[in-house]
C-alpha cells in the first residue's frame, strides 16, 4: 500500500520547531543535492541529507526515527557548499537534540569495549558523548 503524505498545521509546528532550534530557514532548501554529494558519511545513511531536509520541510516527524542525523560527523562540508546558504549541520544537531533532550541517549557508554576505551583519545569520547547523549 503506498503511503500518502498528509500535510496539516501540525506538520508546520515540527518544521517551525526545527527551524528555530537550528536557526535555519529550512523552507529555503530547493533540494539541489549538493549536501548529499558532499557528505563523507552518506554511504552509511538510510536517507540522504537532502532527503532529511525534505522530510523536515514537509513536517514529517518520522524523520526522527531515521539514522542519517546520527551518522553526521559535523564536518561542515555541506555548510560551506550549500548554494542557498543553509547550515545543515545545525539542522542535524537540532534533530538530534529533540530526541536527546527527552533523556533518550543514542549511545550507551557502557557498551564501549575496554580495549577501545584504552586507546580512544579523549576528544573522540567527549565529542561523541556531546553529540549522542542528553
Amino acid at each position, binding site marked *: 500500500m503506498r503511503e500518502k503524505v498528509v500535510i496539516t498545521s501540525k506538520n508546520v509546528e515540527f518544521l517551525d520547531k526545527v527551524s528555530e532550534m537550528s536557526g535555519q530557514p529550512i523552507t529555503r532548501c530547493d533540494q539541489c543535492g549538493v549536501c548529499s554529494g558532499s557528505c563523507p558519511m552518506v554511504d552509511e545513511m538510510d536517507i540522504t541529507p537532502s532527503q532529511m531536509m525534505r522530510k523536515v520541510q514537509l513536517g514529517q516527524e518520522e524523520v526522527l526515527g531515521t539514522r542519517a542525523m546520527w551518522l553526521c560527523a559535523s564536518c561542515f562540508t555541506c555548510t*560551506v557548499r550549500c548554494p542557498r546558504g543553509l547550515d545543515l549541520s545545525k539542522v542535524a544537531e537540532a534533530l538530534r537534540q529533540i530526541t536527546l533532550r527527552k533523556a533518550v541517549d543514542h549511545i550507551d557508554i557502557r557498551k564501549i569495549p575496554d580495549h577501545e576505551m584504552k*586507546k*580512544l583519545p579523549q576528544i573522540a569520547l567527549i565529542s561523541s558523548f556531546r553529540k549522542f547523549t542528553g
Partner: protein
Amino acid sequence: MKIPYYPGCTLKTNAKNLETSTLEVAKTLDVELIELPRWNCCGTVYSLTSDDLIHHVAPIRNLIRVQEMNDSGLVKDENRLVTVCSMCYNTLKRSNLRVKENPEDLDKINDFMYLEEDYKGNVEVIHFLKLLQDMGFDKVEEKVRKPLSELKIAPYYGCMLLRPKEVGIDDPEDPTIQKELLEALGAEVIDNPYKKVCCGSYQTVHEKDAVSNLGYKILSQAQKEGAEAITTSCPLCAFNLDNRQKEVKQQHPEFQHIPVFYFTQLIAIAFGVEKKYCRFDLNYIDPETLLKKKKLLQE
C-alpha cells in the same frame, strides 16, 4: 615573543607528541608558548543549536584566562591565544565569534560565571599554522638544519581547520597552507584531492567501519599520488588515520601502512631538534623507519 597557549586535554595524554614537538618548534623560533593557567576542557565540539548557551561557558572561560594572563603580567598586551589541536581551535574560535556577534549572549554568560571576571570579547583565537604563516614561512626556512628533501608528504587538513568559512584558516576546497610550510622545510608535497575530506571524527567510537572506509579512501588516494607520509594537526584525525589503519588493513588486505605525522613533528625533525621531543612512541604506525631511510634520523 610570549603568547598564551591552550593545549587541550588530548595533548596532555594520547597526543603528547603533538605538544612536545610544537613547544620545541616554537622555542626554536623564539616563540615562548605559555600554557594558560587553570585552563579547562573546551568541550571539543561547538554546540550548534541556537538556544544552547551553557556549552559555550567552558570555551569562554578559557578566554577569560587569557585576559588574566595579561593582567598578571605573564604576557604583555597579547590578546592572541594559540592552539594546535584543530578541534579545540574550531570550538574556541566559534564560541568567541558567537559571543562577539551577540552581546546579549555574552552578558548572560558573564552573569552566569559571576565568580569570574567578565569576558570583554577582545581575545583572538589563532591556530599555530596561522601563527607560522603570519611570521613568514621564510623565517621557518631559516631554522631548517635538515631539509626534508626526498620525503614525499601529502598534507591532510580534515574539517576543523577549514570549515565553516568564518573560522577556516585557508580555502576550504583547495587549502595550501601546509604545502607552503612543508615546501619551506624542503619536502616534496603531494597534492591529495581528499586532503579536506572528513576522517569520520567522533563516529570512530561507534561506526568504526565507516571511519576505516574513509581512512582507506583518504590514505590510499594519497599513496596513489605517491605520498610516503601524511601530516595532520588534529589528534582525532591522527587517531582515525593512524591507529585505525589496523581496521583498514583488516577490511582491505592490499592496503599498505603509511606513517601519519603531526606537522610539528616534521618541523622538529627539519629543525634538527632532539628526537625525544617528537615522542614517536605515541605514533601508531612506525614513522621512524621511513625517516631513517631518508637519512632524517640517526640509526
